[in-house]
């Protein structure tokens, strides 16, 4: 049956009845949760350009120590504490990332090092734009790459008696991601925060949620949402009508998903920070089975020009929050991590050489983490370009040996089943042969 139609009529039936009878609520939920795609991608954007060389330290490269003093992390050693945590004899995790170490041991955490953009810009805003549109050097791209993924993966149409070719309007609904199977279309792509990040902007419906607890129309006054639903009833078919419709549908499903019942799994403690809270709400949404396919979370504070610190200090505290947050999410989701991939990203790395104020300046290549059940972890991927002066990008930065688009493409192709690589990564030919093999295919 046409589940989308069921959901819609279900929502309006609930409204018409005023109070949802329990059986209808349950069957509505059963339909949406059963239909919801099981696979989820969680993206964490480290805004401000993280020092990848201190996130995953190339302690085996002597040039690292030639360039770093106050910020240097010592090579692993049995005798000393506060050293890098050995991963493979050459790379080590920053000690403040220790919460993630056993995921690496369980082969569920993969690192891709010397990853980044081929574009030389060292401007945060340009590089973030380029990464989020996945079109380095092309400023005319308006939509975000994750939005294009949502549009691409929305076309497994099961609308009863209709096939994609059955009409331009129907096909267009799918092509733009307006119609999805199961759950509300707008709940497929969720950004935690008040602003919709560029990665998620575009024609496919997405929702930015600053705070799940207060998300809705009219706050506690539920009657306003119903009033607006009726107000927009006469707008069906128009651009604002469909968008509002998607919103009401999403809100209705969230309401009946009984989010308040959620408690983090036993022993799980999220950091009491905005980032920790965002991750907690991502887990809440995923565990409620409302059909989230892509979740996006920002974490700032990586632009460490001054007093970056080493084993402790400014950057170490950022790592600690990042790792504890991710680990809490990981443990909270438990078995569900079999269907979840979490990926970190940052617009570029930082200079190999420490600057005069105990920090590092804008660089080029950095590292990213990919984790989850489907990940072929326990390995640091990528070709190491080396840190000798002549090996550096423009003689100052870690070079890029993995184009971030190749990593992104592998993740969304393998994990989410995205197919239209030419549309998701316009102007760049994705060659599966370049995939690092980070995910089990």
């Amino acid at each position, binding site marked *: 049956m046409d589940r989308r139609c069921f959901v819609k009529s279900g929502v309006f039936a609930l409204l018409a009845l005023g109070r949802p009878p329990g059986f209808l609520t349950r069957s509505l939920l059963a339909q949406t949760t059963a239909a919801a795609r099981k696979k989820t991608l969680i993206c964490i954007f480290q805004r401000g350009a993280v020092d990848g060389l201190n996130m995953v330290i190339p302690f085996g490269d002597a040039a690292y120590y030639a360039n770093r003093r106050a910020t240097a992390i010592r090579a692993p050693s049995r005798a000393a504490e506060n050293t890098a945590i050995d991963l493979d004899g050459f790379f080590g995790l920053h000690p403040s990332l220790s919460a993630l170490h056993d995921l690496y041991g369980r082969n569920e955490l993969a690192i891709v090092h010397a990853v980044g953009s081929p574009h030389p810009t060292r401007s945060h805003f340009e590089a973030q734009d380029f990464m989020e549109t996945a079109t380095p050097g092309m*400023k005319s791209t308006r939509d975000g790459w994750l939005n294009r993924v949502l549009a691409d993966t929305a076309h497994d149409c099961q609308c009863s008696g209709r096939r994609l070719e059955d009409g331009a309007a129907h096909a267009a609904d799918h092509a733009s991601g307006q119609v999805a199977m199961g759950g509300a279309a707008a709940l497929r792509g969720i950004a935690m925060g008040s602003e*919709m990040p560029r990665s998620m902007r575009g024609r496919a*419906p*997405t*929702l930015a949620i600053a705070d799940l607890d207060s998300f809705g129309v009219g706050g506690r006054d539920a009657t306003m949402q119903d*009033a607006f639903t009726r107000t927009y009833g006469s707008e069906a078919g*128009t651009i604002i009508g469909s968008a509002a419709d998607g919103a009401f549908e999403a809100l209705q499903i969230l309401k009946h998903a009984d989010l308040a019942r959620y408690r983090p799994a036993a022993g799980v403690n999220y950091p009491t920070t905005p980032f920790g809270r965002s991750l907690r709400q991502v887990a809440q949404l995923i565990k409620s089975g409302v059909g989230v396919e892509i979740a996006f979370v920002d974490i700032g504070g990586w632009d460490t020009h001054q007093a970056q610190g080493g084993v*402790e200090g400014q950057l170490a505290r950022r790592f600690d929050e990042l790792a504890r947050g991710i680990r809490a999410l990981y443990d909270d989701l438990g078995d569900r991590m079999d269907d979840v991939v979490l990926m970190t990203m940052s617009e570029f790395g930082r200079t190999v050489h420490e600057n005069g*104020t105990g920090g590092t300046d804008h660089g080029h290549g950095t590292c990213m983490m990919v984790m989850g059940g489907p990940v072929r972890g326990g390995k640091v991927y990528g070709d190491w370009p080396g840190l000798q002066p002549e090996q550096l990008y423009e003689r100052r930065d870690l070079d890029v040996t993995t184009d971030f688009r190749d990593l992104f493409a592998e993740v969304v192709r393998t994990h989410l089943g995205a197919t239209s690589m030419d549309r998701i990564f316009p102007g760049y030919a994705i060659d599966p042969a370049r995939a690092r093999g980070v995910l089990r295919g």
Partner: protein
Amino acid sequence: MIRAPRLCVFLTALLANSAAAQTAGPEAARATHLLQRATWGARPADVDAVLAMGRTAWLDRQLEPRKIDDPAAEARLKSFPSLQRGMAEMVAEFQRLQRERRLAAQVASDTVVHDRRDARPARDSAAVRAARRANAALAPQLLLLDLASARITRAVETERQLEDVMTDFWYNHFNVYFGKGIDRFLVADYEANAIRPHVFGRFRDMLGATAKHPAMLFYLDNATSVAEGAIAAGRQRGLNENYARELLELHTLGVDGGYTQQDIVNVARALTGWSFTRPGGRAGDGLAFTFRRAMHDAEEKVVLGHRLKAGRGMEDGEEVLDLLARHPATARHIARKLVERFVTDQPDPAFVDELADVFIRTDGDLRAVTRALFTSERFYADAAMRAKVKTPFELVVSALRVTGAETGRSRGLVQTLRMLGQLPYNAAEPAGYPSASDDWVNSGAMVNRMNFALALAAGRLDGVRIDARGIFGGSAASDPKTRIRLLLAQLMPGVETGTLEATILREISQPSSSADQPTRDRDARRQAAVRALGLALGSPAFQKK
């Protein structure tokens, strides 16, 4: 005195009635359409004014903004301290603070190195803390709060509506992003001096003013673009094509304007040396455009088939700007953007040609072009009427205007526009904010739009004063139905709102839960006003223009 409020209410109702009566008919519809596009939102009184003086006369008056007194807006803008500070002063202070902070941090990090026994990093020194405090006054969030609030206030208050709307269009066309480095100190000056004075002047003058303004020179890196092989101070460099590319793609010819990568390179070469002086620099200059001859590429170059001879200086760049400003592709590109922004999302090619012809014929006289835009029969085509969805900025400003809300420094409004994605000065991309309806409409955005309407109606936006009961008051005697009709006529003059009227009527007849009778009555009246206003401002009809 006791009777005065009643009298006011009565008069308001009378006026609203007369407006409602007048805003019917085709001429009223045209006047409303003109106001919805050429101002930040039509109010019944505005419609009456246009009907009284005629659309053309109204437009001609708006096209001469210097002749319109604007005391209310000017007075309100005085309350924003950031607008009163010069950009050079702010940059100089910022640089001084940066230097002090760096020195202090240096001292602090040396301390850490020497004190190895202490595992904890040294706490910030008093000097660092002091510098940080001083820096806070120049902190991006506070500056942006001020500048964006001032931008909203001006849009709401100014009598020079068309000038303000066109300033928004042209700022966006020549966008500079607040968030790039020192540009946060420069954008206000850029708008005031490179954009606003030229919106009814020559396109070539505005193009030149933007090309030479430090805000643009910094934003798109032309200030540091130097001839290959030139020795520039410190590290770096060579040619930077950033500005040249956007100049051709966005500011003038358009992406399909028929230029090549080689043209971009040669335009960049022609503009090498176009830079600006920093305050406190060696020459003791302020912050101003300068041409650095030593950085200029004086070799011969060809741009769009036009030869620029070797051995010249700044005139290379001027000649390129002349060439671009007069290029027919530029006329078409500008005309297309104007029609998309002010008429329909899918511009009528015939209208684009019509405007492009005016642009070419008048050598880019923007007063003539703007006049042609708003007087053309095509502007009033059926397909154009109420065919556009308001952008978030248009939504917010029009809501403040039609409700007579008073605004000042407002975190609530800034946060609203940030959430809706159109905070002034905050478009990171050189292309600025888009203007087509579907760029601004998605599920999350609709939730935010409705919540904005409810928050405004309930007076929950800090820095905004609104009187929901006054707006919805009508006379106590009139029945709810009439009051709703008057409310909608006030908010959306000339719009058919029968269904909305019925919906609101149903929604406001909810009982209140308060205890005693007088409180209940008072609460109920206020609740009804807030609900009615919130629903109206969040309605589909109010999203359109």
